[in-house]
């Protein structure tokens, strides 16, 4: 039984690699797409927090390149986005980087890390107005994450490792 599990893992891993190679040209386009990053104010962001596709679960992570715990957990969101794309899960990374550092820091960072999830820059200084709209209990510290679908919405003011993130997500996609 254990053996079978390992075979599945190995097979899926190698498939992962193959897919990765096959998608190489797509990777390039997705990386280039970060060259024209979407910069929004909170009105522009709200649609990402209230998308209505009944089949999908959305994972929205607030982060910044200067936030060390955010950078640490970013690969887990990337992994989630890759591994659960078949399960109708969409990850959106909302960057709170300073607008003047979009070119000098954010874009080079996304390119270097090969980030594939959708990235949106939130540029809205009136945080006292919009933070409570994201969640009443958010103090404003990042990292912070929202997971939601048509059934429910949960806000997390905390860091995740992959296992923790996956456990949270599974509670959304398992409940029918």
């Amino acid at each position, binding site marked *: 039984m254990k053996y079978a599990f390992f075979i599945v893992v190995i097979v899926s891993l190698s498939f992962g690699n193959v897919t990765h190679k096959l998608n190489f040209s797509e990777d390039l386009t997705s990386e280039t797409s970060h060259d024209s990053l979407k910069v929004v104010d909170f009105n522009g962001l709200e649609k990402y927090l209230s998308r209505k596709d009944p089949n999908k679960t959305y994972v929205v992570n607030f982060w910044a390149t200067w936030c*060390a*715990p955010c950078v640490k957990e970013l690969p887990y969101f990337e992994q989630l986005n890759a591994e659960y794309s078949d399960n109708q899960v969409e990850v959106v990374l909302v960057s709170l980087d*300073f607008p003047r550092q979009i070119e000098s820091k954010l874009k080079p960072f996304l390119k270097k890390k090969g980030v594939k999830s959708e990235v949106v820059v939130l540029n809205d*200084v009136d945080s*006292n107005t919009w933070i409570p709209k994201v969640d009443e209990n958010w*103090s*404003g*510290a990042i990292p912070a994450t929202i997971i939601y679908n048509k059934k429910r919405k949960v806000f997390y003011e905390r860091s995740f490792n992959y296992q923790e993130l996956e456990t949270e997500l599974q*509670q959304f996609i398992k409940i029918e």
Partner: protein
Amino acid sequence: MKNTFKMVLALIVVVATSAFTIVGTGYDVGDIATDFKLENIDGKMVSMADFNDAKGFIVVFTCNTCPYAVAYEDRVEALNKKYANKGYPVIAIMPNNTDVKPGDSMEAMRARAKAKGFTFPYLMDEGQKVYPQYGATKTPHVYVLQRTKKGHQVKYIGAIDDNYQDASAVTKTYVEDAINALLDGKEVPEKKTRAIGCSIKV
């Protein structure tokens, strides 16, 4: 059976989440804040009780390494210059674990304070015991306290102003408005505000 499992799981999540919230609450406006005794960058221990003439304090949880905190350094210094002699000095407290953030070590704090010409105490929250009592979650995070017969009462919690990017484009000076109101014997107009900041490193 599967449903029971799900329900138990859901229950665990609810309990865990609420427990987490209780731990993270800290002070609300109106609460009495405890005094502290923390080491300053000059090696001396500092408490609020040391300030005989103070009417209150601007307690700022801040650090060297968070860009939001750095963006506000000059404004924190300006607050101290403006309000220390009116009875509301700034006390800055560095809450991060310096093992996680070596850039916030006492030596680094000393260097930063010298480079920026800080005129306020810049204290190390040794053992990270003070910030959880206050309920600070990020840097910068401000608590305006007023000295009353009951103790140091929390009058304002939150951001310094409404524009972290550009000091010249600020339209609401939350901390200044709070202190001006206290000096005039009036109610603080906006008692709690929120801003993005770097989570305190544990």
